[in-house]
């Protein structure tokens, strides 16, 4: 098993799938000649040519719709939205066309398109380049939403998503492309549903996804020093959420903290708490808690920006409070 960076894992998945099937294409702003803002498609333009590695105009609604239309005829486009903030401009096509076409055609037509995009907050990118939009995507029937927290998942989920017949939104993270991790040398397919127990524990469950999994792991290390065994669950699939996995862990630890990089309202945490209430309320020894971003547009000032976002120390503090420490 070799170590590779997140972007290399995404690139490898592109390359293998494009080599296998001539109808797999990739498209987006600067994905071709430039090789992608985060290098996720580097080298593919020279290998597969401009017909299959398509530098698009800056017209998110247009090229996303074009990719979806191509998928109607069996093409498997991997669309890169350079920043998830730009996805707002493509929402009509993602929601009204890709997510609904199977249903409103009575199962005749499908849109097997992959849309991948970095979300999350990086450093001082300001309010319009710091959106965390997973909550928006996960509310739409007909769309799968996954969010890889490491290179292995990034590789394996893109491979599965390309072959899956549903539209899949892959929520990546601007700060994670240079993260290193082990990826199997052989071909590997990661599930698009479920969750992963990233760390076993018995005292409290920390639910994270994407970058917040790492905050949870950091917090768990800290808590371990105090004799608290935190379980960390990676909710890599946001739609559908893994009800059974959530309930199993809470039934074991009886305490839950959901850590999300996004603002709390109508978010992943709210949804996980609802599932806990529905599925395992009587297993709880304490009211579940969310550690979320503050509900503000992300400020430019670095101090304000950091204050707007959750961090491992807040997770540790929340866990201590919950356990009466």
């Amino acid at each position: 098993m070799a170590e590779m960076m997140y972007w290399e894992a995404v690139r490898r998945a592109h390359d293998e799938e494009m080599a296998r099937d001539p109808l797999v294409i990739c498209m987006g702003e600067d994905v071709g000649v430039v090789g992608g803002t985060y290098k996720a498609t580097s080298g593919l333009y020279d290998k597969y040519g401009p017909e299959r590695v398509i530098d698009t105009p800056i017209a998110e609604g247009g090229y996303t719709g074009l990719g979806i239309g191509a998928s109607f005829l069996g093409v498997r486009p991997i669309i890169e939205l350079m920043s998830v903030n730009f996805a707002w401009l493509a929402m009509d096509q993602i929601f009204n066309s890709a997510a609904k076409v199977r249903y409103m055609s009575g199962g005749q037509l499908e849109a097997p398109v992959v849309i991948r995009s970095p979300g999350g907050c990086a450093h001082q990118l300001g309010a319009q380049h710091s959106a965390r939009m997973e909550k928006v995507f996960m509310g739409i029937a007909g769309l799968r939403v996954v969010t890889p927290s490491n290179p292995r998942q990034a590789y394996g989920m893109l491979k599965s998503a390309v072959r899956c017949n549903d539209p899949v939104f892959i929520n990546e993270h601007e700060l994670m492309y240079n993260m290193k991790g082990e990826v199997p040398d052989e071909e590997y397919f990661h599930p698009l549903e479920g969750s992963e127990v990233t760390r076993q524990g018995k005292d409290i469950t920390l639910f994270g996804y994407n970058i917040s999994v790492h905050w949870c792991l950091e917090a768990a290390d800290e808590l371990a020093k105090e004799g608290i065994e935190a379980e960390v669950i990676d909710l890599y699939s946001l739609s559908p959420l893994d009800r059974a996995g959530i309930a199993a862990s809470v039934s074991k630890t009886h305490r839950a903290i959901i850590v999300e990089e996004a603002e709390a309202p109508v978010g992943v945490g709210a949804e996980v708490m609802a599932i806990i209430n529905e599925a395992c309320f009587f297993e709880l020894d304490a009211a579940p808690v969310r550690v979320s971003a503050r509900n503000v547009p992300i400020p430019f000032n670095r101090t304000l920006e950091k204050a707007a976002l959750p961090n491992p120390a807040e997770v540790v503090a929340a866990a201590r409070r919950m356990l009466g420490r």
Partner: protein
Amino acid sequence: MNTDDKKRLLREMLFARRFEERCYEAYMERKIGGFLHLYPGQEACALGVMEAARPGHDYVITGYRDHIHAIKCGADPKAVMAELFAKESGCSKGRGGSMHIFDTAHRFMGGYALVGGPFPLAAGMAKAIQLKGGDEIAICFLGDAANNQGSYHESLNMAALWKLPVLYITENNLYGIGTRIDRSTAVKDQYKRACSYGIPAEQADGQDIEAVYHAAKVAVDHVRSGKGPYLLELLTYRYRGHSMSDANAYRCKDEEKEWGKRDPLIILRDQLIAAGAIGEDDYHAIDKAVIDEIEQEIIPFSENAPEPDVAELERYVLAENDPWVRPAAGGQQ
């Protein structure tokens, strides 16, 4: 287009007119619910263009005024009417409705209800055709008002840039819902707008099916020959309001009367009568045959068709048993 073609098209057009009028009645009887956008007045557009194209071979996509486009592509009118009646036997299994007629077996890729939504989808289908190397073309029918959406400009730009085999038809019926074109659109001649993207375009009389056919033939040949996209504007008029919920109070009676004189059905009928190909009696006989087909076959089929099963409410949201949702790590599927 010879006389036999025109006689066949007269029947098709009469069928389209009576089908839509019958939809109106069924709506008033509350047999059809939801939104209903009818096509009378514009029939020569869909029929004439598809006469020049290859129905069932070329990929067609349109907006919500879609019944006749689907039927001309080859959809069974019984399945279309049953869809309007929201039945399981409907072409979209009662899940779509009037605005979402689909018949992919005949490459009618659907009616879409967001104005301008199909522009990029059509370009994408054309991209797929180009990648696969087929001789099909993608045809996108939308109204003049859709051309004010950003999706129009984004799609035309990409279609021209990549020489995609897509034909955009603008059925210019002068109104975007209830707003007249000169109150919404800076350039009234829609074909002129295509030149921003270097796309060849033409304007034709959308009420004379022969004129539509000849203009469409040029357009279709251009696109099929690999020269890239083309835009054809057809000047037309809808006799009814935008939808059934539209009282149609924004148009003056004189204008409606003027366009009434240019009814595509009357124009075609009179051409055939003038040529001695049919008489008045023949016209009425065709009309009667068409109405009989609707009343004796299509309506009873739709009324008697089964309702969708509530137990299947959640079907078609996602693919069923897709192996890649929970694959084995090595992916042996």
